[in-house]
């Protein structure tokens, strides 16, 4: 696995088109979902996913540690998203509620309760400050490890853990 990743990075650095296609195949779904979860609408998310890969391709020379490939591409994506929000300050984030309708129709009682819990949690996550929201999304929804998520956010592991713990505390308080 490591050898495969190292080879991919080496081929990317050499400007290999096949490697670029491989990188896209590996991560485009994750990055698209990340964009949605960061509050972008469907079409924006597609555009921003595309933009993230173009930037990754253009700056592949800056990737020094091939082990960090995943967090590197995530970091680019998060930055692309941040740049978008800077340019479109007036635009409201879509929020998780627009991503998927968490409907309760046709469900049993337990399922309805569970679904209601999710709705509450969804609203609470959407209402979190950006840093906390991003930490929750990267670790619990995108399933990045603590180290990967910390690297994505450009902070120390300890800082990220503390951020995550504060975010969870806030969510518990909200619920």
């Amino acid at each position, binding site marked *: 696995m490591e050898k495969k990743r190292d080879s991919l990075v080496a081929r990317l*650095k*050499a*400007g290999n*088109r096949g490697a*670029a*296609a491989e990188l*896209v*195949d590996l991560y*485009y*779904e994750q990055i*698209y*979902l990340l964009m*949605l*979860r960061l509050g972008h609408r469907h079409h924006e998310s*597609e555009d921003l*996913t*595309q933009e993230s*890969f*173009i930037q990754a*391709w*253009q700056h*592949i*020379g800056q990737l020094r540690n091939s082990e960090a490939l995943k967090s590197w591409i995530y970091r680019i994506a998060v930055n692309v998203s941040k740049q978008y929000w800077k340019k479109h300050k007036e635009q409201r984030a879509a929020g*998780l509620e627009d*991503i*998927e309708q*968490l409907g309760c129709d046709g469900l049993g009682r337990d399922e309805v309760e*569970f679904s209601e*819990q*999710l709705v509450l*949690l*969804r609203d609470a*996550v959407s209402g979190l400050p950006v840093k906390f929201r991003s930490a*929750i999304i990267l670790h*619990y*929804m*995108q*399933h990045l490890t603590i180290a990967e998520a910390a690297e994505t956010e450009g902070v120390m592991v300890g800082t990220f853990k503390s951020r995550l713990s504060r975010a*969870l505390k806030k*969510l*518990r308080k909200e*619920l």
Partner: protein
Amino acid sequence: MKELLGQLGEKTSRPVRSGLAEEIKQDISNYLPQHKRSRDTINIIIDFRINKLAAAVAIIVTLFLCANLFDINHSGDNSIFEEGGYLINYCLQSFGIGGVSSEQLAGLAQYERLVGQGFDVVYYGNHIDWSDSSAILMQWKVGDDEYKVLFSDLREKKVSGEELIELQAQMLRKK
């Protein structure tokens, strides 16, 4: 809470449009020329705009540097400077800057070279009649009572102090 967040992550995912990956790959291909092709090569694009005269000066200085770098022995043989002069003049004419003879350019080139070598050179090029082949273009001391004189036709001659005074007097008389 963590489990709920995981569930929310699943609920907030949606299938990615099938053509997105191909579009991204296509888009990356368009950026290939801008991407550095290996770690050992770099792309340098310089958009350097200077006026025509400055360009001509830059060419002259470059010729000088080359002449000094390769330690071209100039005594008695002016061919490299003459040819350089022709080349520069050709360039200047193609830039639309006419009226500078190859002798003048070659003379200037030699003056710069001698000054660069530490000689105390007296230059008369701004005041002489260039059509007079016996006019002194420049002079410099090479030893006790020994001087070198470069005429406007780029002939070089070693003279004594007395001969030098005589040559200068001739020039003044012609004026």
